[in-house]
């Protein structure tokens, strides 16, 4: 497993696209958080928002990270789909015929990268939102460490989920649209149903407002989806022709 991880790690960073996807994810999260905070200030200035109202930090940071999942999904997707689109998978599986190990290594890289980029973009978004909101920030704001931990956990688990979907679908376009539907699209489901899907669960994990369940449960719901899909992916790749 360790040498497969070492090999996959080297592969990941020796092409350009992953770097671009991660940079784009951070920019997307920071820009969205700043834009949401600014919208609130604008609403206050034109009287849409009552005088003296304040914005909770996570109202700006949470939606920004939900959107950021899609940018990060592009990164996690590429770990698998670029193998199939280029034909590299034939080299990879000849070198490591224990295919489950390859998928597990890619999942681990997606999780580690998700944790890193989640922590950076979560803390960064919190900083930007604080700077933009100033006095309009609701007290007490969530500490940086907590925001960073929540967003790191979310992107780590979402990364594994996307690697699993990519392994099942193999096509980049299909994987990205499936990831979009799972991670964000399920937010539009009726409240009773959506709580069991990754969209609502991720939102609850980030906001930590206890509705409909606590943040750790939200993380567990996303993780359960990731685990089931990963199990399916491992089962499938062992049996499928490369």
């Amino acid at each position, binding site marked *: 497993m360790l040498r497969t991880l070492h090999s996959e790690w080297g*592969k990941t960073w*020796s092409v350009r696209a992953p770097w671009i996807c991660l940079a784009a994810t951070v920019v997307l999260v920071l820009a969205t958080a700043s834009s949401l905070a600014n919208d609130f200030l604008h609403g206050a200035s034109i009287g849409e928002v009552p005088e003296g109202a304040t914005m909770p930090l996570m109202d700006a940071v949470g939606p920004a990270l939900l959107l950021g999942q899609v940018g990060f999904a592009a990164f996690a997707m590429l770990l698998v789909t670029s193998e199939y689109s*280029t034909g590299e998978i*034939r*080299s990879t599986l000849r070198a490591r015929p224990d295919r489950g190990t390859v998928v597990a290594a890619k999942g681990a890289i997606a999780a580690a990268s998700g944790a890193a980029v989640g922590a950076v973009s979560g803390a960064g978004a919190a900083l930007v939102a604080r700077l933009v909101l100033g006095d309009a920030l609701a007290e007490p704001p969530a500490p940086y460490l907590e925001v960073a931990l929540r967003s790191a956990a979310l992107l780590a688990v979402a990364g594994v989920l996307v690697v699993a979907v990519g392994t099942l679908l193999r096509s980049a376009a299909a994987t990205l649209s499936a990831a979009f539907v799972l991670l964000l699209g399920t937010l539009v489901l009726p409240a009773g149903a959506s709580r069991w899907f990754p969209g609502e669960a991720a939102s609850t994990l980030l906001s930590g407002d206890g509705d409909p369940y606590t943040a750790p449960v939200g993380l567990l719901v996303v993780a359960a989806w990731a685990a089931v899909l990963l199990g399916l992916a491992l089962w499938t790749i062992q049996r499928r*022709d490369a």
Partner: protein
Amino acid sequence: MSKRYGGTLAVDGLSAVVGPGRVTGLLGPNGAGKSTALRVLLGLDRPTSGCALVDGRRYADLADPLHTVGAHLDARSVHPGRSARDHLLALARSNRIAARRVGEVLEQVGLAAVARRRIGTYSLGMGQRLGIAAALLGDPGILVFDEPVNGLDTDGVRWIRGLLRGLADEGRTVLVSSHLMAEMHQTADHVVVLGRGRKLADCATEELADRADDTVVLRSPDPDAAERLRAALPAAAVTAARHDPGELHVTGADERQVGEAAHGRGVVVHHLARRPSTLEAGYLRLVGDDIEYAGRPSAPEGS
């Protein structure tokens, strides 16, 4: 071993042993099942029935397969955005191969100078060389190449020929699929011919080539040489070459019989030899039978 894709039986009960110390050519027309057989052998596809074993084990059961089997299937099993060096380094790491081997094989295939360039900028020939470098990386005892000379210039073709011979002479097992018969005639010691998924021949290269032509060519300045030979060899057919009436083609007699007949009848002989047989002719005769069979209305569809 058999392999079915949906309704198509790509390999149909193929059974063959590829031995060490020689170059074995895997020949056959498009759709004959060559690539499928190699994909099953290398653990990429699962056989529908039977199995393919490498040193007595399934490929998937090899712990670090690059030390046992090196393969080059096509120049598109790589990420074009990565450098050759990084591509080989990832393969080396995955199979516990020392990083210095990467430099060695790049040197060996002549890509050392462009090792840090993106693979996408390589020519087809350079891509082939990279694939061969990857196959040699683990210093394996078994090498499998699918159409390795495609896209190579004359120099590259000669290089591959020498490389394959050298690998076999070192006692390694070398399996090469190709549709270039002249090339295979020069390189392969042994051939396995596939047609519509079945094995049509499994023999020494010369044996398949020898089946091709039993014509003896004789050149004589005597204008009545043909008549005299016909009289001496009633069982044989003697015809004059279209482009040169002095060149006679004899079938139905070997060069010893023709030579003795010419001597007996006092025919002056300037040249006497069996026409050089080609692997291509032997192959076409073999595969041609198969294509005729396939063309019968009652034959199943697809290939």
